[in-house]
C-alpha cells in the first residue's frame, strides 16, 4: 500500500512544519492556530494507525476545547510581544557549546532507541487490518481500565476547582 506511506509523509511533514512554526512564532495567537494544524495532521496519522476514535477525540477535545481555552487566555491577557533575551546566560560561549552537545546527545539517544525498538524487537503480533470500533474501545475502558477512568474524573473535578480558585482569587479578595 504505497499511498499509505505517502499519506504518512504528507501528514508527518505538516505536523513537523507546523510544530516548528509554533515554537518559532513570536505572536502567541499564530502559535495556537498553527498548533491546531499540527493536531489535525496527527489526527490523520491516527486514522492511518486504525484509531479513528482517538482521531475524532483529538480534533474535538484537543483542537476544539483545549486550544479554544488557550486562545481565550491569549486574547484575555492581550499580552505584549515576547521580550528579547536579556539574560547573559545564553550569550556566553560555554553555554552554547554545552547546549549543542546536549542537543546532539538527545537526538543520538532517540535514534539509538528507535533503531532498537522495531516491530520485531517488541515482539509485534501483527497489525490489525480493520479499525478499532468505539464499542471495542469502550468495553476495554470500562472493563479493564474502570478504576483509571474514575480516577481521571476526580482529577478533572480537582483541576476545575483549582483553576477557578486560582484565576478567581481577586474576586474573593475584592468581596472581603
Amino acid at each position: 500500500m504505497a499511498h499509505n506511506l505517502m499519506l504518512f509523509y504528507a501528514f508527518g511533514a505538516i505536523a513537523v512544519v507546523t510544530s516548528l512554526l509554533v515554537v518559532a512564532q513570536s505572536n502567541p495567537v499564530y502559535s495556537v492556530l498553527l498548533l491546531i494544524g499540527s493536531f489535525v495532521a496527527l489526527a490523520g496519522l491516527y486514522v492511518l494507525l486504525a484509531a479513528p476514535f482517538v482521531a475524532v477525540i483529538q480534533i474535538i477535545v484537543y483542537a476544539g476545547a483545549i486550544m479554544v481555552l488557550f486562545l481565550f487566555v491569549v486574547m484575555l491577557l492581550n499580552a505584549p510581544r515576547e521580550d528579547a533575551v536579556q539574560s547573559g546566560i545564553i550569550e556566553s560561549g560555554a553555554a552554547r557549546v554545552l547546549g549543542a552537545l546536549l542537543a546532539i546527545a538527545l537526538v543520538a539517544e532517540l535514534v539509538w532507541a528507535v533503531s532498537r525498538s522495531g516491530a520485531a524487537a517488541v515482539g509485534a503480533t501483527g497489525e490489525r487490518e480493520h479499525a478499532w470500533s468505539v464499542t471495542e474501545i469502550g468495553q476495554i475502558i470500562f472493563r479493564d481500565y474502570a478504576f483509571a477512568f474514575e480516577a481521571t474524573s476526580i482529577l478533572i473535578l480537582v483541576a476545575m476547582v483549582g483553576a477557578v480558585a486560582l484565576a478567581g482569587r481577586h474576586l474573593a479578595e475584592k468581596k472581603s
Partner: protein
Amino acid sequence: MAELNHYLMLSGVLFTIGTAGVLLRRNLITVLLSIEVMLNAVNLSFIAFGHFLGSADGQVIVFFVITVAAAEAAVGLALVISLFRHVETLNPDAFRRLRG
C-alpha cells in the same frame, strides 16, 4: 507501508521540537503550547506501538493522556492568569520571587 520505526522517528522529532520550545522560549503561553507538542509526540508513539502490537491499550492510554492534558491546560492557564495580574508580563524570568 509505513513501519513502526517511521512513526517513532516522527514522534522523536516532534518531542525534540517541543523540548526546544520549552527551553528556548520566553513566553509562558508558548511554553505551555510546547508542552502540548511534547504530549502529542508521546501520544503518537503510544498509538503506533498499540497498532503494531495489535492491541487497543495504546488508544486507551492516549484517551487518558488527553484528559490529563485538559486538566493540565486548565490549571496551567489559571496560574498564568494570576501571575500576569502580579507582574504584567509573561516572561518566566520575571517570576523569581514566589512570595505572595
